[in-house]
Each structure stands twice: as structure tokens, then as C-alpha cells.
């Protein structure tokens, strides 16, 4: 997608974050809660898709290289976290280390980690960090 979609993505993401903050401050009637949450989730996914799939201003093969690297790091991290989660679950089943509530929380986190949307968000965050780091290094060593 062209670069202008990235600008749109940032606008939507900012709107979602501000609206979440505002909604946390004010109570909404129960019947509206689910609808608002769903709309916000959809907007969040749309913004992340726009940000993740739109081109940079100067998109070239190095940017593609960073994208590829980010995907590999994101997928690798998810597998490592899943393995750690599985070990924690196994230990808990054997020795009962965590309370029922704690285990429910761990299971919830594991379900979140292994979802596709988390993988995509992680890819996007890692890509931005790599891009920023390279930009910072190249700026300090500008010739």
C-alpha cells in the first residue's frame, strides 16, 4: 500500500488510544460497552494493518530486509514464549505451583501470545524499533 495509508493508520491508532483512555475515565451503560469495545478492536486491527502493510517514504530493499528480519524475530519470540508457557503449565500440573486464578491468567496470556494478531503487532513493533535504531545510528554517523 502507498505511504499515505500509513498516515491514515497513525490517525486511527491515535484516535483508538485516546478513545480507550477517555472511556476508561467515564462509565458507559452496559449495553454500549460491548459495541464500543468491538468497534475499537476493529479500528485497532485496521490501524495496525494499515501501518504494517503500507510502504515507508523511502521504501527500498533494506527496508524489506528489516521487514523480513522483524517477522523472523517476532515468530521466533512467539515460539520461545509458547515453549516457556508450556513448561510453566507442565510444572503447574505436576507440582501445583500457581493458584487457580493465576493459572487462568497464564492460560489467557498464552492464548493471546499464540494469536495471529499478537504476531502481527509484535512484527510491527520490532520493525519500528529496527528502523528507528538504524535511523539513529546513521544520523549520529552522518557523513
Amino acid at each position, binding site marked *: 500500500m502507498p505511504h499515505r495509508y500509513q498516515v491514515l493508520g497513525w490517525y486511527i491508532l491515535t484516535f483508538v488510544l485516546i478513545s480507550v483512555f477517555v472511556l476508561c475515565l467515564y462509565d458507559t451503560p452496559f449495553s454500549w460497552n460491548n459495541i464500543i469495545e468491538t468497534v475499537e478492536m476493529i479500528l485497532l486491527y485496521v490501524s495496525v494493518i494499515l501501518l504494517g502493510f503500507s510502504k515507508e517514504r*523511502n521504501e*527500498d*530493499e*533494506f527496508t524489506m530486509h528489516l521487514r523480513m528480519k522483524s517477522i523472523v524475530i517476532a515468530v521466533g519470540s512467539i515460539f520461545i514464549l509458547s515453549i516457556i508457557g508450556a513448561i510453566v503449565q507442565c510444572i503447574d500440573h505436576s507440582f501445583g505451583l500457581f493458584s487457580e486464578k493465576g493459572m487462568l491468567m497464564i492460560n489467557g496470556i498464552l492464548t493471546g501470545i499464540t494469536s495471529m494478531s499478537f504476531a502481527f503487532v509484535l512484527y510491527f513493533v520490532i520493525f519500528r524499533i529496527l528502523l528507528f535504531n538504524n535511523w539513529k545510528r*546513521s544520523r549520529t554517523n552522518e557523513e
Partner: protein
Amino acid sequence: MKNNIRVERAILRISQQQLANAIGVSRQTVFAIENNKFIPSTELALKLSEYFSKTVNELFQLDDARDEQ
């Protein structure tokens, strides 16, 4: 893989930005190539070779440590 891009650029007295504009990439890409953080594609290597009027072999060399392996 190592390269002489920085040296060749110094000979021509051009900035990273000027080189980046000439070969159609970002300045960050030129920086990454010069610092061996990124190995360019054949297409980009040929563009660099054409720009500096040098062969690709003169611009890019295999690392000695890698050759020994």
C-alpha cells in the same frame, strides 16, 4: 563480505545522501551497506559499480575469515 564504498565515496567527495539519491535508495541503506550491516542485491551492487565506474569485485570482497572457513 566487506566493501570499499566509503573509500570510493571519499575519493569522489560525495555524501551518503548524494550517493543514496544517485542509486535510488535511502541514506540509511547506504549507511548500512558501508557498515556491513546489509549486503545489497545484485541490482544495487551493479548500480554502485556503474556509479563508481568500478567492477563489482573491486567494490565488494569476501571476508578473509569467511574464506578460511
